[in-house]
């Protein structure tokens, strides 16, 4: 589902965010991306949805060569990738419903389809009670649920979550990870970057560790630190 071949990313300021990354992630996988701050986790994710372009190497997502993708095709790539952010990136002046429906609107979906799928996604994340609330009126966990609902409302085959629990308390973090696990079980590839040791250790998923832009560990049933 996701493949990186010899990927390097250097920024114009001379920072090598990623060097020589080779990686394959299959369809049903749930992967933790770990590594200290500045290791390159966010950069790696941005390469997948073409927010950044690799300096060299090849990125393939859902059989699409992202590196060579024509700019006009980027929107269609992104409709196949749900993205969850640490800071939620919800639109403040719109309700939860509007925020989630937004991701369907941009595809030009019919109003009835938008309504049905939005409600389904909100039900899945357990936010039906808050459809008409504005982001300001939500707790951190609820905001993240809204963000996840938006990410999956299109039924994308891939879900990327960049530090989804960075702003949440431990119990809420745990709920969010359960939700991501549930989504993974519904046939979605899930990649989660995190600094949350307890969760990684508890969930026993595949763990990929970056350090200074290099892939230093790729471990099935892994833990946050090397044992």
């Amino acid at each position, binding site marked *: 589902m996701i493949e990186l071949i010899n990927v390097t990313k250097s920024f114009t300021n001379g920072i090598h965010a990623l060097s020589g990354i080779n990686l394959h992630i299959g369809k049903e996988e749930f992967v933790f991306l770990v590594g200290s701050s500045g290791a390159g986790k966010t950069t790696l994710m941005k390469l997948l*949805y073409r*927010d950044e372009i690799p300096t060299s190497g090849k990125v393939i997502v859902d059989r699409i060569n992202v590196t060579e993708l024509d700019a*006009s095709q*980027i*929107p*269609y*790539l*992104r*409709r196949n990738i749900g*993205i969850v952010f640490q800071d939620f*990136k919800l*639109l403040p002046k719109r309700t939860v419903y509007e925020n989630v429906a*937004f*991701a369907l*609107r*941009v*595809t*030009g*979906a*019919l*109003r009835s389809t938008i309504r049905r799928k939005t409600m389904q996604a909100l039900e899945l994340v357990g936010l039906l009670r808050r459809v008409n609330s504005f982001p300001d009126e939500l707790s951190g966990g609820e905001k993240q649920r809204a963000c996840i609902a*938006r990410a999956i409302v*299109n039924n994308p085959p891939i879900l990327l979550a960049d530090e989804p629990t960075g702003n949440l308390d431990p119990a809420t973090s745990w709920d969010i990870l359960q939700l991501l696990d549930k989504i993974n079980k519904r046939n979605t590839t899930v990649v989660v970057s995190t600094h949350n040791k307890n969760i990684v250790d508890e969930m026993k998923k595949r763990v990929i560790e970056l350090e200074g832009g290099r892939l230093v560990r790729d471990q099935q049933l892994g833990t946050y630190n090397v044992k």
Partner: protein
Amino acid sequence: MLSSLEFFIVEAFRSIRRSALMSFVAIATIIVSLTIFGLFLLLVLNMGNIVGSISSRMDLVAYVYKDLSLDDAGVIQIKISNLPGVEKVEFTSKTEAWNNFKDEFNSKLNLNEVVYDNPLPHTYMVRVRNADMLPQVAKEISSIDVVDEVRYNGKLIQQIKSLISAVRVGGTALVIMLSFATLLIVVNTIRLTVIARETDIYIMKLVGATDNFVKWPFIIEGIIIGVVGGVTSLLILKLSYEAVVNRILQALPFLPLITDYGLLMAIYATMFFGGTALGMIGGYISVSRVLKNEMQ
């Protein structure tokens, strides 16, 4: 596209409401430019109309002081009427002219006692098809040997014509400059609303919106601003023109001002579509620029 139209329109109005003051400035600018544009158009067209009606009444007069036989006079008349641009030629012999003159004045004084010789010339009244041809026709008639003098009122017409073309050139330049200024203001107005919504746009693009999808609300915002400006200015022009024309025609009922409904409608339509186009192009330029410069 159609299913998104409602969304685009709602977004456009939302955006206008959020930057109400700037939108108002943009609309006011459009109103000013379009009204001036319409005023100049009406001014030029009306002046042209008036000149046209004056020049259609324009005649040219040729005098022959020598004695002419009636035969010779007839030959010259035919010669003149065969000149290109000549519509009609009337001949008045010096005798006829003298008799007419005497008929008119004999009641007041006895001319025969004062003047023994007929001092009047033979006269050819020449009607020319169009005022532009007057100088040429006059030249041709002057070159006939026996003709002593040719007179026409060409100078006034020439002056009015050059005034019209000055107004036309000045008006066109002013309108072009105003259009650019208006476009600039519309572009910047909408650019501000685009920048205010940069995060929205970034998120829209992250969830897979195409550039066109992102652009449409702003283009529609421009169209709305343009339509409001266009309609307002055409109403201002229509009402004030009608009032002014009524006034003038009360004082000078024969002045050939433009009251033709079709032509006026065409001018108003031009203003409406001009405003719409200004707004639409402004919206398109601003959102395209921001998308290009500030996001990849």
